[in-house]
């Protein structure tokens, strides 16, 4: 335990005691409102506790000292301390409300990114079709997020941007953000100190592991990253692409690669071996079997498993993608 060596965090150099650095256009507004409420609250807290302690000391029960007469009510005083704090509350409400409206009203020309949350990973889909499991955005440009969920409630929370919103299955929610600082230079992740992106709505077993990073680039770097991301196959082997697709397309939630039995059979050591099906037939797992299982999952269900796998049409996985996935499975032998 190294409590003491960690204590400097309490007086963080960047950001205040309570908040980390502000990295979106509306973050300073949120922080200012927080500070306003904080100082006014601190004032009232010190006042209340101060008066309380003073009274305890001054009127502490001593021999020979009884209670002294004083009024049991005073309407003027009581109305005053009911009404006057209300004005402060109105100020807090109005500031909270106006800031909120600007946080919730995206500019018309905002760049759009689709956010698909599912147990327990994030998928960000960009206008050119590129996909990523971490979030990549340009600096100084409003970005609008369209949030959806495939299963249960999730919540996209980026503390550095002071924003969060639930991802609700069956409906689209939206938020927007304009980042004011980059997280590093170039498109090499090692050159960046990315922001955290948390899931803030409890969503089951791996809720606390549903963690992604936010990379903020210069405009030129973002365009370069986007082009590279859209062209999945450039600079990667087929098996590497297959592994990316395995994670992004959700295969990972039902098929392990370490032999663990999940909703579907593990991919470990499965290529080239024979499998028994529920109808009693048997076949060796090859490229054709993989392709059939993706396009028509109910055709041959491995014995001991339920027919629960969804169909992946070519709009969700191209033939080339299937080839990459087959290469990935092959590499797991």
């Amino acid at each position: 335990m190294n409590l003491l060596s960690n204590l400097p965090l309490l007086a963080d150099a960047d950001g205040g005691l309570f908040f980390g650095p502000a990295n979106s256009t509306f973050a300073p507004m949120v922080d200012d409102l927080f500070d306003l409420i904080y100082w006014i609250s601190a004032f009232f807290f010190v006042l209340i506790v101060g008066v309380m302690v003073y009274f305890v000391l001054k009127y502490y029960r001593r021999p020979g000292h009884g209670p002294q007469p004083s009024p049991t009510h005073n309407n003027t005083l009581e109305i005053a301390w009911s009404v006057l704090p209300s004005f402060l509350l109105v100020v807090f409400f109005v500031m909270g409300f106006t800031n909120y409206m600007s946080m919730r009203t995206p500019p018309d020309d905002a760049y759009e990114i689709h956010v698909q949350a599912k147990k327990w990973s994030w998928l960000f889909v960009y206008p050119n079709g590129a996909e990523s499991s971490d979030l990549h955005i340009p600096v100084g440009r409003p970005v609008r997020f369209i949030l959806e969920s495939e299963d249960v409630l999730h919540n996209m929370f980026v503390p550095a941007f002071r924003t969060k919103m639930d991802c609700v299955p069956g409906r689209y929610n939206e938020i927007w953000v304009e980042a004011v600082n980059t997280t590093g230079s170039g498109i090499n992740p090692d050159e960046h100190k990315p922001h955290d992106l948390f899931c803030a709505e409890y969503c089951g077993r791996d809720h606390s592991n549903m963690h992604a990073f936010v990379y903020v680039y210069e405009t030129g770097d973002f365009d370069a990253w986007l082009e590279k991301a859209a062209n999945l196959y450039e600079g990667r082997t087929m098996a590497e692409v297959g592994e990316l697709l395995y994670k992004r397309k959700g295969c990972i939630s039902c098929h392990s690669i370490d032999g663990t039995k999940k909703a579907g059979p593990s991919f470990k050591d499965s290529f080239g071996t024979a499998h028994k099906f529920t109808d009693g037939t048997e076949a060796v797992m090859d490229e054709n079997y993989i392709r059939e299982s993706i396009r028509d999952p109910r055709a041959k269900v491995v014995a001991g498993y339920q027919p629960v796998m969804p169909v992946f049409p070519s709009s969700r996985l191209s033939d080339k993608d299937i080839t990459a996935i087959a290469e990935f499975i092959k590499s797991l032998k």
Partner: protein
Amino acid sequence: MSVGSTPDKFQAANLDGAQTREDNYLLASSGVGSWLFTLDHKRIGVMYLVGILVSFFLGGIFALILRAELFTGTKLFLTEDQYNQMFTLHGAVMTFLFIIPSIPAALGNFVLPVMLGQKDVAFPRMNLGSFYLWVVGAIFFLCAIIFGGLDTGWTFYTPYSVTTSTRVILALLGVFVLGFSSIFTGLNFIVTINTMRPHGMTWFKMPLFLWSIYATSIIQLLATPVLGITGLLLIAERALHIGIFDPEMGGDPVLFQHFFWFYSHPAVYIMILPAMGIISELIAVFSRKHIFGYRFIAYSSIAIALLGFLVWGHHMFVSGQSQLAAVVFSGLTFSVSIPSAIKVFNWLATMYKGSISLATPMCYALAFIFLFTIGGLTGLFLGALATDIQLHDTYFVVAHFHYVMMGGTLVAFVGGLYYWWPKMFGVMYNENAGRLFCLIVFLGFNLTFFPQFIMGARGMPRRYARYVEEFQIYHQLSTLGAFLLGIGMVGAIGVLLYSLYRGKKAPANPWGANTLEWMCSSPPPLANFDNPPPVGDPYDYSNLRYDEREGGYVTVPGPAKKTSSH
């Protein structure tokens, strides 16, 4: 059953402390059956107290296991699944089995009829019934824990609660039954207060604890049915797939949140209003001052009860509800803070020019003001929309509601327990030990929850088994605090239990209070009073004098002072 009713019997018991065996409700009859089938509100209150304290320690053990696991950001001894079940059970047990029934069902049951100078509540059989409903509800909870656990969080949010394989239906049945227990208690108290106030006790001569219980009962009666119906709908959703909450079947998950919080926000006031009632009594008695602004305090209880129904949407600012709804709920939320602030100012004004004794109950009352002020003020950050977006579902919220519910309700409950303990069991506890553990509770509490405000504002989400390294220092402080708090709570209850064996015999009125429960002997006889006690201003202490021989306060004869009640 009852003792002979010679006219001076009450006086004799009061002054000499000489009780016959029959005088004492604890000894009036013996055997397990005499407790299990009792219709005496005092014994029912004591049985509730035992059940509630057992639940509290169960919930507390869950909390300590959670905090121990969180000492580092990575796995110590709980898997994610186990962690999720543990925080769910901590929340569900503490909320439904402990904190909602704690003050009304345990202390309220014991004190309310005696405070009214009556021998029991309006419906004693219903009272016993509501205790057994609590027991049945608790058994459902235990079954849910034993047969597969629960991992939805105490909020049961859909669609997760529809899809998880844990024992949601068992737990919901428990909540449903506990709801009826709560409704019966509320109904009983409303009827009792409406119809059984003694001659001379007008509404505005009623002790403030009774006002707060009355306001609480209104909420229990009106809000709890919504929870029951919501639970049934969720059971139907899981069992019959009717498609009301699950989007897979065309339902709306946000609808569940509206239903759930329509009960569960007012439930926060079921927890805090009776606590405020206790504090009003303690501050007046231990300052030996008439409560300041009686009417404002009484009205503010009713105002909180009514406004509490209009603010549930502030739990849903990031759920995707309409922006108009968010704005309206934010505005209404701020309005609830005014009556709470009024009470705090009135308590301080009551202490002005008083004669303040730092007996253990008063120490808890002062701790309450300190902690509840922090809890209330941090609510302002959550009521304001822009700051709530950042703080929602983080440890800031965890800290805020623990400051209100635990720093508020629990501290008031323990303070009230110390205050009424001599009345309940006829023994005095050790004052120095009581104060020592109050201090440990106070320090442990702040060390546990204050760091959570900071880490929450910096972005630490709640309900996390694992976390990034940045937050570790705050979690470690919090965990140390939790164990200190645990020691304090065990000690605080231990001091009381120890007094049962070694405590000095309690006088009828050890604190010099002027509410009616102090006018019968300690512990009260089975029928509480032989003759209806005289009703006066509950906060006028001018006719009370400390009597060395008695070891407590006695009423000195004198011209009945006519004081105004406000």
